[in-house]
């Protein structure tokens, strides 16, 4: 039996979501068709859209359904960039904190290579929080040249929650839109689009108990994006037949997550704290990364670095012992590079290599946490021995 502690990578499909999804998959009808079968499919799409909107405090018209989180982030960043630059060719600057997810860093890198964008990186502090003063200075220095700001709501790796409202307020002074990658945060912390002051928000279904390849970009009604995909113009800025079953699944998952959040967040946080307490006792020289204040951290995130060990070894040993965890680092085609977030937080490469991310979810139990704590000291000892053995060679 596997103890699954990698909910930030993907979390189990919820039973009620699976049932609704399967039911919807069985029905025929293109949401854009005029006949009654089409109307039924349209109803599924729009109901799902409304549920997503309600869960995130947005208007249904602001919800653009996508085929997953990466598409949403690409549409949010590239779409806003193109639209802003089309309105004023001087707006070519993109402000992005260091250590973002690859969907963001690769999107802005592509815009820099092919679309003349200038990327300005905002530093992180030692806890992984973006430097608001630096963001303010960057906005104030070239207010008319900034196309957009993009950040995660909370770090997918170290769990640090970013000061979204403050950042949005700074950008609003200059009329600059903020895109937020909310993929790791939605379902973990309250995310209210309307009051956040941001222009766009990306979410992904599979972090909420919906299937992979469902997601949405929440795009404020006062903003527009140039589309990535061209075709039948089914949604504002997004072409392609809408995935009715996916909309059903995403809508239900978002609704359940929002409804249950007041109960699940403290419960998961308590388990996470039990885990961190246990780690402090059993592996006292492991270091918690990210914001230690529970208020500034995703409730399910426990991220540590283990001096003298490396993530590959820890992961292998824990996997062999029946625990699914992550090194947290960006995994490029199976090769783990030192985490850009940890590097941006000021860690050296060797320390960053000892990273271990355990992410808890709604299905995590006390027994699972205790089972991990039971094996962890021996795993750490052996992982350290492996690094030492490998290093000792002349």
């Amino acid at each position, binding site marked *: 039996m596997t103890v699954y502690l990698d909910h930030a990578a993907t979390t189990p499909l919820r039973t009620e979501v699976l049932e609704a999804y399967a039911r919807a998959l069985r029905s025929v009808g293109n949401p854009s068709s005029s006949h009654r079968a089409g109307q039924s499919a349209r109803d599924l799409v729009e109901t799902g859209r409304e549920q997503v909107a309600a869960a995130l405090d947005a208007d249904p018209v602001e919800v653009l359904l996508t085929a997953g989180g990466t598409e949403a982030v690409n549409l949010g960043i590239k779409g806003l960039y193109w639209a802003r630059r089309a309105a004023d060719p001087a707006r070519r600057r993109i402000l992005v904190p260091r250590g973002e997810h690859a969907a963001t860093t690769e999107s802005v890198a592509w815009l820099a290579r092919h679309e003349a964008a200038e990327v300005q990186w905002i530093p992180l502090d030692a806890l992984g929080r973006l430097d608001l003063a630096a963001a303010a200075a960057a906005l104030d220095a070239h207010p008319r040249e900034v196309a957009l700001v993009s950040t995660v709501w909370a770090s997918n790796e170290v769990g640090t929650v970013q000061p979204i409202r403050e950042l949005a307020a700074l950008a609003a002074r200059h009329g600059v839109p903020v895109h937020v990658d909310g993929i790791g945060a939605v379902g973990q912390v309250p995310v209210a689009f309307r009051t956040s002051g941001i222009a766009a928000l990306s979410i992904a279904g599979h972090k909420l108990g919906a299937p992979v390849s469902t997601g949405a970009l929440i795009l404020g009604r006062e903003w527009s994006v140039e589309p990535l995909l061209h075709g039948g113009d089914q949604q504002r800025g997004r072409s392609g037949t809408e995935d009715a079953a996916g909309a059903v699944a995403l809508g239900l998952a978002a609704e359940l997550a929002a409804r249950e959040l007041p109960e699940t967040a403290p419960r998961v946080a308590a388990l996470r704290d039990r885990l961190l307490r246990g780690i402090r006792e059993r592996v006292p020289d492991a270091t918690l990364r990210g914001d230690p204040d529970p208020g500034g951290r995703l409730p399910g995130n426990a991220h540590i670095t283990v001096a003298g060990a490396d993530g590959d070894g820890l992961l292998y040993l824990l*996997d062999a012992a029946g625990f699914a965890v992550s090194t947290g680092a960006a995994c490029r*085609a199976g*090769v783990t590079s030192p985490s850009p977030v940890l590097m941006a937080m000021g860690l050296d490469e060797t320390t960053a290599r000892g990273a271990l991310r355990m992410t808890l979810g709604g299905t995590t139990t006390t027994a699972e946490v205790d089972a991990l704590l039971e094996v962890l000291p021996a795993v750490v000892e052996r992982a350290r*021995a492996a690094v030492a053995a490998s290093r000792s*060679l002349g």
Partner: protein
Amino acid sequence: MARSGHVRVRTGCSSAPYAEGMRVLAAMSGGVDSAVAAARAVDAGHEVVGVHLALSRQRSSLRTGSRGCCTVEDAMDARRAATRLGIPFYVWDFSERFRDDVIEDFVAEYAAGRTPNPCMRCNERIKFAAVLERALALGFDAVATGHYASLVIGPEGERELHRAAEDAKDQSYVLGVLTAEQLAHAYFPLGSTPSKALVRAEAERRGLTVAHKPDSYDICFIPDGDTRGFLAERLGADDGPILDRTGARVGTHRGAAAFTVGQRKGLELGVPASDGRPRFVLSIHPKRNEVVVGPREALEVAELAGQRVTWTGRVPADADAGFPCDVQVRAHGDAVPARAAVRGGELVIHPVAPLGGAAPGQTAVLYAGTRVLGQCTIDRTVSAAPV
């Protein structure tokens, strides 16, 4: 939990060099050989975990030409094979070690006018050193690879490294650098296979998608095969003289470091040889940026010697006095009769007949029949045909 354990090599049994029920780390490159080797380890009842070694941080996505170990496609091939075998699979990043111990060594050797064998260095320093040590510390008993070579228990109960059953595929030469300690934890499941065709047929029978994947031949960290360009980028490529053995200038080269001893092509000599015969690179002097050329017979050596000596088992009893053996100086060369002796820490080898194709930096592997005895990296040679 991973259990600790030691290999219990059964002695006194000439046919079974491996313990039963080992925890085996199968190094899987993504090629057919290592996939079948892993499969056989599973069949033999061992507990097998597949590991693909990532040796480069910046990997290209797709395989090109005859390459076959370092791309994302190769890692995926290895993963699919592991899945097919029902074993866990991980990618381990050894790119830093590989850069320090293999690539930089390769460049430094060329910079010193020597001819390195990076595959040998990888076996010595990465696969059967860094990876093996890490594997043992993590609770494994052995590292299995797809090399064609045999381990057998000899008459005195010692583990012996021998040539593979099939001469054409034999890879014992590149394993000649391993010590008895390293061989104690090595596992070569393909060793007794009579042909590569059989391995491919077995892969096909087992439903492995890599059954018909082309073999890899070139240096894995030079994907385009342009070794000269790779070295020029790192060592520079300043024009310099090509000299004959009398010191007369016969041509101009574009960077001495990119040459290898014995090379004939690409010299672009302006002055014809007095005897009209083809000329070969005899020596390289990167510090003076000079390349010396001469006739083929000048390449033949009467003596070769090196300092970095290792043995696959006990040091031969008559090492000081000298002992008869065969010596092989290239992966695809033949072994020729020789006498070898250890003098003051240096292994000195005298081929019975003058030997071509031996250059500093290459590895001289000693054999007794099919058995690998040991090796040294060649530091110096004595020409059989002095000027």
